[in-house]
């Protein structure tokens, strides 16, 4: 009996050890769906090789949910985040902020891709970007059919499109559709009509990347606003009937950053980690393994990645629409409500 109890105690201790971040290592939360694997390959292994500091990449459904749930006792000392999630978390007092001087490599990242407090403090380190355009199934439509965001409202696509859930479409689709109608993120009503028309044309509302990938791969839908990295991955996996389109009004820039939960353990190690992810080398590697593109202007893509991209990296980066993510975060609930009401077909 004592042996059994001892085994249970050992198992409990191991479980606690596995979850709890140590002060001398990096424990980083990432999304699943290949993001964790890409981070291990592109950043974690080389970092450990150079510094000897162990890096544990933990895949979770939503890193933001983990940071919020562990508010008083953070188990992670790093997490990947989109800019609008990071802005909201910092506003809620959940993230550390930093002095720009601590990250010399960020001098090579344009100011508009950095997230800062009103006092000029840095909220995390921006490392790479994806973009939000229109994914097209070429068995059912031509890429030229979606040369404008407004094409998504055409009734000829009824039942042949897909749209993401209001929590995301209120941040992404609403913004870029407002831009397509001559507005911006601060005039979401300009994008609402187009988003509602897209919802009316949609066969399904996708709730995960796996679901959307399946809809595109099985030719269930002709097109949907989607992430460049997902289309890149499908093509890398041999799916030749899916293309990413940047409409003439532009695509949405989606920068990603590494943030540190408030009161996280191991400042010395996480500062080294943040400095590492700000460098171009890791960003070039993750472009090769996952299709995320470097934000650091000194990064030079490999020949293969450059060929897959099909246009100069900086030209693409600078052509994408970068909204005020802080503004979007500040108005997140109101935007979600606006989209929910509109998609439900009620104006009440």
């Amino acid at each position, binding site marked *: 009996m004592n042996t059994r109890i001892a085994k249970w105690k050992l198992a409990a201790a191991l479980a606690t050890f596995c979850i709890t971040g140590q002060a001398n290592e990096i424990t980083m939360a990432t999304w699943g769906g290949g993001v964790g694997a890409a981070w291990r390959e592109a950043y974690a292994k080389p970092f450990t090789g150079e510094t000897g500091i162990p890096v544990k990449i933990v895949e979770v459904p939503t890193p*933001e949910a983990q940071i919020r749930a562990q508010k008083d006792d953070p188990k992670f000392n790093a997490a990947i985040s989109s800019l609008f999630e990071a802005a909201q978390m910092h506003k809620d007092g959940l993230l550390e902020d930093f002095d720009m001087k601590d990250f010399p490599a960020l001098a090579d990242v344009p100011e508009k891709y950095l997230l800062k407090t009103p006092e000029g403090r840095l909220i995390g380190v921006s490392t790479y970007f994806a973009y939000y355009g229109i994914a097209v199934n070429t068995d059912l439509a031509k890429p030229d059919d979606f040369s404008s965001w407004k094409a998504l409202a055409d009734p000829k696509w009824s039942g042949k499109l897909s749209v993401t859930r*209001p929590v995301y479409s209120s941040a992404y689709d609403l913004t870029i559709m407002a831009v397509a109608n001559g507005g911006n993120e601060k005039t979401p009503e300009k994008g609402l009509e187009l988003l509602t028309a897209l919802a*009316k044309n949609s*066969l399904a509302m996708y*709730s995960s990347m796996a679901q959307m990938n399946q809809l595109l791969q099985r030719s269930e839908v002709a097109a949907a606003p989607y992430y460049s990295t997902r289309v890149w991955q499908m093509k890398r996996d041999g799916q030749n009937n899916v293309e990413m389109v940047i409409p003439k009004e532009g695509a949405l820039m989606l920068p990603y950053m590494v943030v540190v939960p408030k009161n996280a353990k191991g400042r010395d190690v996480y500062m080294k980690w943040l400095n590492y992810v700000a460098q171009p080398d890791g960003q070039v590697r993750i472009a090769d393994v996952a299709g995320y593109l470097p934000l650091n202007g000194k990064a030079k893509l490999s020949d293969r990645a450059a060929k897959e991209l099909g246009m100069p990296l900086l030209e693409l980066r600078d052509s994408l629409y970068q909204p005020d993510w802080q503004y979007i975060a500040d108005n997140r609930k109101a935007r979600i409500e606006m989209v929910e*009401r509109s998609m439900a077909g*009620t104006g009440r």
Partner: protein
Amino acid sequence: MLVTLFVTGIGYLVVESLSTGDGPGLDNFMRFFERADYVAVLIRTILVSLLATLVSAIIGYPIAYAISRYRGNRNFLMMLVITPWLVSVVVRTYGWLVILGPRGTLNSLLLSMGLIDGPLRMIFNMTGVVIGLVHVFVPFFIVSVLAVLLHLDRALEEASQMLCAGPLRTFLYVTWPLSLPGVITGAMLVYLLSTGAIVTPLLLGGVRDGMLATQIYQDVLQVFDYPKAASMAIVLVIVAFSLVIPLQLLERRVAARVSGKGVK
């Protein structure tokens, strides 16, 4: 212990649902009922759950009855019934896309036979949600009814037939009333599980087919608006109990009646 956990959980939800920026209040509930789209989601949740329960009963009862009367290896049939539980609900639900999707097996077959001009929309609507829920939850109904049918005193049916009642009359006046406690328990289980379903409405529902549990899921894990989610959870609990309590009273009444003890 379980009751304590349940009551503590509900208590926490109540406190959370009443929390507003200006102290305790009913603001979260008022905001919920002020929104026509949320009220529509609530009504849809009830309707879809009732429909899933009804279809589960129609499909599940004959299966349970057939298994209870089977003279061969009954355990094998019971294993077949619960086999779907061994597969992830997400995988099972995705399977319906392959079968019923616009480019799925069934639509391809009907198109190739010339029976339809274009694909039928069998999923990504309320029909798809009901099909998915029935598939996931019908084993609960079958097991509930089967448990009662297997313990049914067959001498009562024999007595009925000896008194010249045919098989149909015996079923209607003896077997069916005696199996009602199982039917009611199964119906309660399917209804309760359906009201709380998240994955199936997310994957098989259309743009306007969200249910309350999916809305709660979004508000907890993506919007992090816990008071709003708690108020919706309380509404969901009330909706669930509004059917379960009358059904439990009915079950008690039926059980007392079939055991010949009457109702106190």
